[in-house]
């Protein structure tokens, strides 16, 4: 915007601004507003720290041999979650091990809860629709979410 814009230029710019908003479908805006439902200021965030599909150190041979399994790791200050994605299931390990619940939340809003056993092990099937994230809670008050996962 410039001070020296005359009326015609200003009107044209206004038309462009209004149309830019009007061409966006209402459901795109709605979905964007709904994404805020996942805002959680209390849970501790576990960030992605390892992804086998990006591991340059794996040789091509190893990679193709294990092509059907993808390994991911998420780490926070207090916990890490190791995850293996097979063709039809998600298998994970919480470190340090503690009994609790893992809830998979998809971006579309669906959730499925899976128990985590004393050894910190959990397994969920089928694989949630991407993107999804895992929310780990224990009776002692642990509250941890991973970053969004897209497979």
């Amino acid at each position, binding site marked *: 915007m410039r001070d020296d814009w005359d009326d015609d230029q200003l009107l044209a710019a206004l038309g462009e601004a209004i149309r*830019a908003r009007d061409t966006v479908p209402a459901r795109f805006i709605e979905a964007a507003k709904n994404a805020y439902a996942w805002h959680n200021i209390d849970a501790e965030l576990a960030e992605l720290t390892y992804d086998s599909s990006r591991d340059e150190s794996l040789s091509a041979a190893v990679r193709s041999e294990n092509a059907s399994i993808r390994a991911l790791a998420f780490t926070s200050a207090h916990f890490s979650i190791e995850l293996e994605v097979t063709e039809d299931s998600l298998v994970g390990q919480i470190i340090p091990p503690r009994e609790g619940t893992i809830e998979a939340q998809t971006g579309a809003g669906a959730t499925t809860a899976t128990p985590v056993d004393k050894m910190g092990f959990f397994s969920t099937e089928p694989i949630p629709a991407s993107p999804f994230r895992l929310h780990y809670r224990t009776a002692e008050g642990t509250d941890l979410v991973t970053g969004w996962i*897209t497979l």
Partner: protein
Amino acid sequence: MRDDSSSVARLVARAADGDQAAWNEIIERYAPMVWSICLRYRLSSQDIEDVGQGVWLALVEHLGDLREPSALPGWLATATQRECLRVLRAARKYDRFGPVPDELPHPAADDAMIEQEIIAAERNAALRAAFSELAPRCRELLSMLITDPPRSYAEISTILRIPVGSIGPQRARCLERLRRSRSLSAFMDGESMPARVRASGGKTRA
């Protein structure tokens, strides 16, 4: 704009603090830019929805730790570009008849386009905010003048019940109010500031 309650940095802080209204305002301002960048990459509407979801979820996750909240438009544009390229790569992997690699847009070559989109998004958001500050009468008249194709003065005269001869002067008055509105003058002041920092965009997701 940076100092008043509606500045981008304030909106980000409020949204990080749990304020859904602030989040909605961010969406109203910048969803058109996300949409527009996706169109530049010629994505289908299904793919655009995927990109949007990825971008907004990344923003929800990083609301509290954006290094430069006032550079949110740049952050969003970069995150959108990355998601678009991810979707295009995925399509290429599964569709043997998709574009050959050389035809895929090259990220570096697109930086100028992204820069333009950020500038347009900030200008458009300021113009829309300025428009919403106008009195209903001015909004009505200007709305009619920006339709494509524009309405004739005769039509406007009939609909708004004002003499044809007063449309020109009213148009000038309303545009002058638009120019002097809080949102637009704040935006113009902001524009004379040093170039905006281009944030690095959302962190990489799995």
